């Protein structure tokens, strides 16, 4: 599998204040993104996610280290030929309409004539913005800007799509649609680099992840390797039996009406709970084994730093 994006020991410090004092933001960031995967870049706010992306796109210059895109040094504009980018809070020329906005970027990318019109039509439909196409961007909501921004990022049929917190301003339906679009991009053979602090998004669609904290990569790898399949505990919701009956079997977390939510840590005790419920003529409403989530790993890592 070829490497689409590679960062080697990237350092960046910002100079702040009247008497400039250097504040390190990236402290030797290294990772790579393989062809055809959805790569999740995870970290809390202020960890250095956006700074990393800006370094990749040449919007800021690293103090040290090397970045290559498709094997080409990121400092060359040619390296960005096959890259699409959607920034965190998309800011666009608000005096343009959605259609004019896409036409402007198409022109910049050298797409003209009928090909341009076809592409604009196709992407407006893909992101569900056909109806707002002739409205000025200043009248768009944040979610709408996010959608038109994604269309802009895909115009040049990029092989690498970089999305910075793409689902920030979206409602639940919008998030689902965005996730579907991203998964489809992967199916089309594109590589997706997705930065987010929303773990659920990453967990659902990413193949590999890198976790950044205070400018350092603290873990990276395949999602399956990072998250163990081990069952941490089982959550059982029981109806019709008082909570006190289960004191010796598990921890009752909450009760509502005649329902009890029980957390059982030992596997052998699950059978005992089930037979006790049967014996007391109660009923099992649900039984869910809880495995470790990306969130657990993330919280543990942040705490241990």
């Amino acid at each position, binding site marked *: 599998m070829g490497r689409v994006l590679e960062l080697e020991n990237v350092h960046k410090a910002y100079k702040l204040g009247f008497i400039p004092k250097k504040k390190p933001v990236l402290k030797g960031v290294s990772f790579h993104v393989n062809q055809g995967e959805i790569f999740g870049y995870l970290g809390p706010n202020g960890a250095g996610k956006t700074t990393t992306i*800006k370094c990749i*796109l040449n919007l800021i210059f690293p103090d040290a280290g090397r970045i290559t895109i498709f094997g080409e040094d990121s400092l060359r*504009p040619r390296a960005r030929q096959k*890259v699409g*980018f959607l920034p965190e809070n998309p800011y666009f*020329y608000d005096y343009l309409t959605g259609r004019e906005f896409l036409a402007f*970027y198409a022109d910049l*990318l050298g797409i003209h004539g009928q090909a341009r019109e076809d592409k604009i039509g196709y992407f407006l439909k893909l992101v569900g913005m056909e109806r707002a196409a002739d409205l000025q961007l200043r009248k768009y909501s944040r979610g709408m800007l996010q959608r038109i921004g994604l269309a802009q990022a895909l115009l040049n049929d990029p092989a690498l799509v970089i999305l910075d917190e793409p689902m920030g301003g979206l409602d639940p339906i919008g998030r689902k649609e965005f996730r579907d679009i991203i998964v489809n991009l992967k199916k089309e053979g594109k590589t997706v680099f997705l930065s987010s602090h929303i773990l659920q998004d990453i967990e659902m669609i990413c193949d590999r992840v890198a976790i950044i904290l205070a400018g350092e990569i603290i873990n990276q790898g395949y999602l399956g390797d990072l998250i163990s399949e081990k069952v941490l505990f089982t959550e059982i919701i029981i109806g019709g039996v008082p909570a006190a009956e289960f004191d010796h079997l598990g921890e009752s977390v909450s009760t509502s009406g005649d329902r009890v939510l029980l957390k059982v840590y030992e596997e052998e005790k699950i059978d005992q709970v089930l037979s006790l419920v049967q014996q007391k003529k109660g009923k099992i409403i649900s039984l869910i084994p809880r495995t470790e989530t990306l969130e657990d790993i993330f919280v543990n890592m942040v705490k241990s730093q």
Partner: protein
Amino acid sequence: MKITTIALNTFKEAKRDRVLYLLFFFVAVCLLFSRFLALLTVGDRVKIIKDVGLASISLFGMLMAILMGTGLVYKEIDKKTIFTLLAKPIHRAEFLLGKFLGLVLTIFIMTVLMAAVFMLILFLHTFSVDWKILLAILYIFFELCLMTAVALLFSTFTTPILASLYSLAFYLIGHLSWSLEMLIKKVKSGAGRAALRVLYTILPDLENFNFKTEVVHNLLLPGKLLGTSFVYGVVYTAFLLLLAMLVFRRRDFV
């Protein structure tokens, strides 16, 4: 092609910001002042109208170049529209050149419109057309191009307010630096004279583009002087643009 796209978009932005409405102010100032001053003056009324008209074109053009030019790049960075733009495969120099040409195009169209109005007012007073006026306006336009490059240069590293002040200072120095030339002639040759000569070479001399007096008073316009002024304008503007590109080349967009 990329430069053209950015230039046309810059023009579109100016158009939608209703910058061209400035033309109405120009017409009002031109009509009112030329009538008012003509009433107060003894002598040639037409000369007053020509003087006021040319000065107004220069003033309004300068206001446009400075006010719009200083916000040109700053606005892109402040509004973060530059992020998606420079993430595309374009050189920063192409971006700057596109912005510059876009504003020059806006100023060109505005100058043409102002010139048309001015010529019409003049025609209504004299019933004849003085084509030499257009030559003076052309050199005003060259000066405006240079001022746009000045504003753009300051816009690459500072806020619009400071950039406006710097540009204004540049404009004033540019129109007063000719007195240094007079001084040089009066100072005895030596270190002092050499220092003054260096200073005069570095400082801009915008009076090189001022042919208003010659045109209004129907004086001789030597071709050599026109040629030198044109070359001076092109070289100085190119130098300023190059400087802006150098500043912009390694700038971080945080």
